[in-house]
């Protein structure tokens, strides 16, 4: 019981972290919360379903294409909706909230209410240390999710682009003085944020099929993770994601499975009371 709950917590935690990374990136750089994050996750799931199941592409290129398309869509959203609202966080929040509802209903019209599931990469289940049986697709999601997180960190630490991102999220004014083109950076980082949501979507949709409204809980958990870890902190995201995954699954196993998702929200409110900037956050936004 404990073993499988921890395992489950890790898998879900990695996915939470991945979904939250995109939110965190955008918050860190632009101080914008993208409420439609979950719908972009879903959109990528639909794309990969469309390309792989309907058009018969192999799953890997289908996933890549899905992420690329969502990235472009993200750039478009930034240009059309977010850019005019800079400096007014509340307005971008309202706009993306409406956008999320619009997307949900568009999905409903286009793809219908049924869940859609891209093909599995691997079939069957495995016995883990003789303790419990676990779906292979979930294990694959764990591995690829962790690999993707590692890749994101590598890019942030080692590349020129990563340094600019880190500098800007620490002090935007300084970055501007030092000649960073923040308009282009905003657009790019918003697109990347969306692409990260999409990556989480394509990895997870074979496990949890996508439905028009399935993005809502994904986005909510991503927000919880981001606030938990501290707005804009990438490490906070990973720690927060794993923590949340573990707490939820252990809570569900040993306290009450119905209240699984409440544990996360309660931790969130507690953390905000004690340390409003989150576990790893900057003092003030």
């Amino acid at each position: 019981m404990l073993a499988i709950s921890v395992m489950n917590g890790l898998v879900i935690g990695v996915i939470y972290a991945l979904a939250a990374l995109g939110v965190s990136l955008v918050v860190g750089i632009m101080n914008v919360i993208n409420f439609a994050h979950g719908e972009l996750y879903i959109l990528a799931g639909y794309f990969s379903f469309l390309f792989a199941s309907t058009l018969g592409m192999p799953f890997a290129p289908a996933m890549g294409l899905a992420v690329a398309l969502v990235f472009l869509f993200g750039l478009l959203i930034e240009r059309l909706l977010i850019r005019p609202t800079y400096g007014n966080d509340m307005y971008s929040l309202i706009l993306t909230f409406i956008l999320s509802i619009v997307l949900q209903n568009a999905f409903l019209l286009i793809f219908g209410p049924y869940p859609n599931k891209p093909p599995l990469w691997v079939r069957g289940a495995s016995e883990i240390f003789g303790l419990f049986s676990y779906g292979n697709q979930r294990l694959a999601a764990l591995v690829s999710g962790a690999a993707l997180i590692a890749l994101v960190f590598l890019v942030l630490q080692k590349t020129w682009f990563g340094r600019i991102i880190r500098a800007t999220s620490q002090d935007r004014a300084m970055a501007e003085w030092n000649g960073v083109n923040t308009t282009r950076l905003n657009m790019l980082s918003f697109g990347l944020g969306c692409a990260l949501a999409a990556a989480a979507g394509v990895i997870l949709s074979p496990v949890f099929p996508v439905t028009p409204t399935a993005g809502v809980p994904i986005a909510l958990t991503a927000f919880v993770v981001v606030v938990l870890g501290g707005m804009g902190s990438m490490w906070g995201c990973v720690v927060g994601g794993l923590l949340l995954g573990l707490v939820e699954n252990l809570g569900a196993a040993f306290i009450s499975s119905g209240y699984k998702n409440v544990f996360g929200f309660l931790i969130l409110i507690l953390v905000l009371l004690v340390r409003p900037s989150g576990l790893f956050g900057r003092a003030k936004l």
Partner: protein
Amino acid sequence: MKRHGKGMAIGLVLALAFCSAAWAQDTIKIGVVGPRTGPAAATGAAFDEGIKLAVEYVNGKGGVLGKKLEVAFEDTAGAPDKAASGFERLVTRDKVVMVLGESHSSSALAQIEVANRMKIPFIVVEAWADEITAKNYRYVFRAGPSNSGVVNQTIAQWVKAENFKRAFVVAENTDWGIGIGKLTENALAKAGIPYESMITERNSQDHYVELTKIKAFKPDVVLAYIYGVGLHYFVAQAGETGVSPQAVVLDGAGPPSLWPDYWKNVGDYGDLECFVSSMHEKVELTPLAKLFREAYTKKFGKAPTDYKSRSIFDGILIAADAINRAKATDAEKLVEALEKTNLETTRGTAKFGLTPGGPDYHQWMPPMLVIQWQNKQQVVLYPPQAATGKLKR
């Protein structure tokens, strides 16, 4: 200040413009309520098919009272509030004389209150909670399974017949789930079969933690009362976590195991799953059932799978028959006619119980089957007289 007032006045004009209601009647309209969206949206699609066939059938036989029968279908989304307001909309806006349908008990329980208040006959077709008829409302009928009927006549009998040793009951947190879960527990206790039970969220996508708890109990049968795609997740994850095939999983609702995306969502783990149904090609009870199968195949180019398409078909036939015998569309006469129903349908002869005091009042319980998927073929396991094969584990 002034501009505010004018803005208000414009709103008023807009409101007045909207408030105009007039309706011409050259057909007789009945209403159907059911989920076209939400977790069991597929039921709406099945209802749609059944409605088309039934309307053609009824109008082909001369319609009702010399007029054409028309059906208005209102989506209830599986949400009780939308169900109640949808019911009301059918009556007040579409002016229907009778309402039938529904496959969510929680929605139906909200709707029977409206039916009772507005004095509109309501034939529940596929919502199983006992309370629906147990409330003994004058205007409420059910031409379809009830929880106690399904459990006592079919599921519990099957569990005993297959000689299962340990049972786990998983029920979704709705009127149907909780009700049928409790009835099952009572039946298991009476039969002396050890069991445990659990309530689950019907929209949940992740059942791993629950399945781990189930596995620890080592059941040989899992009775799953989850209606909607939630069942697909449950069946697939039961396979992944190794709960099945040690235990046989029974879908206690049926249709989710018959929906077109069942195999897509559950993959190889869908085989050997059992489910409840009232329809199987080799077990047709009446000539009308055969006629239905042929008409369906002809119209939609595929064999009927979801039995709820046939349930609504029966419901509309019962409604049309009652209108014709009542020779009127007013509620009191319709209720009297419905109480005297004696009509051959696809599932046998429909007759409503008339003894007040329990769930059998205004209730007609059609026979149900337990079927197992064996290599993607449906094999009837229960009742024995209809069986086409044996349980495979």
